[in-house]
């Protein structure tokens, strides 16, 4: 029973914070709301017996990527969207075509939910098969990562190197040629 309560609390926080992310005018507030959403997701990962993924989520997403976003927002002094622009693109003021489109989007969500409820094999409790020890052990994670997925691991390290070099190159100021 407390498990279900915690689940609803955390998922409500995640969904609410994410909805606020896209609903804020000030990009600084959006970033902070997203950090809250990541924290809630980390809680959900802990409930799914994945402590390493939860901590990695906080370290990588909330601790590094969001700091990067915050730096860029502060550096660019990202302006709030002007009132005229906001009013023009607010979903309820858009022309009829977009309003119908939004209604269809809501209908999609409802249909997705119904499909999930009706699907077989997903109705059982999530902790049905397999014991928690096998899944939450960091030792097991490391072993599988370095034996079955070692190629993807090495390729990812090259990817990060390329991204680092690319980010520095792209954000560099163009030097004036004399």
């Amino acid at each position, binding site marked *: 029973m407390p498990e279900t309560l915690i689940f609803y609390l955390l998922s409500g926080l995640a969904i609410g914070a994410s909805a606020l992310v*896209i609903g804020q005018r000030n990009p600084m507030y959006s970033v902070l709301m997203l950090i809250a959403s990541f924290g809630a997701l980390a809680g959900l990962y802990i409930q799914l017996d994945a402590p390493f993924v939860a901590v990695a989520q906080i370290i990588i997403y909330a601790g590094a990527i969001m700091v990067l976003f915050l730096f860029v927002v502060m550096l660019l002094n*990202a302006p709030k969207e002007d009132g005229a622009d906001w009013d023009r693109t607010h979903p309820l003021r858009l022309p009829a075509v977009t309003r119908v489109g939004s209604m269809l989007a809501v209908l999609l969500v409802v249909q997705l939910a119904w499909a999930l409820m009706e699907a077989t094999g997903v109705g*059982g409790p999530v902790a049905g*098969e397999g014991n928690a020890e096998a899944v939450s052990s960091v030792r097991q*994670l490391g072993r599988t990562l370095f034996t079955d997925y070692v190629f993807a691991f090495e390729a990812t390290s090259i990817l990060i190197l390329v991204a*680092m070099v690319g980010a520095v190159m792209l954000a560099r100021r163009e030097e004036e040629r004399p």
Partner: protein
Amino acid sequence: MIPLSHYLFVSAILFCIGTTGVFLRRNLITILLSIEIMLNAVNLSFVAFGRQMGTVDGQIIVFFVMTVAAAEAAVGLAIVIGLYRHRESLNPDAFVSLKW
């Protein structure tokens, strides 16, 4: 015990919120944030399914998704900085002509 479908439902809603953000927001940084929301929704699905099947493969895939998301956020933000320096605007509607 929480059914798997609950986790998948949360993941679907988060994904839809992210997609809505990408389509409706007119600020480059908020669009990038919505992409991060979508990636997180997918991560949640993976971990839930991995737990259901009792293997660590779900968590390993999440590990790689996080790494790729970090790389993509870094390069995306560098591009945003370059664009802002050129046009002084973060509105994607300001970048409609193919001329730099």
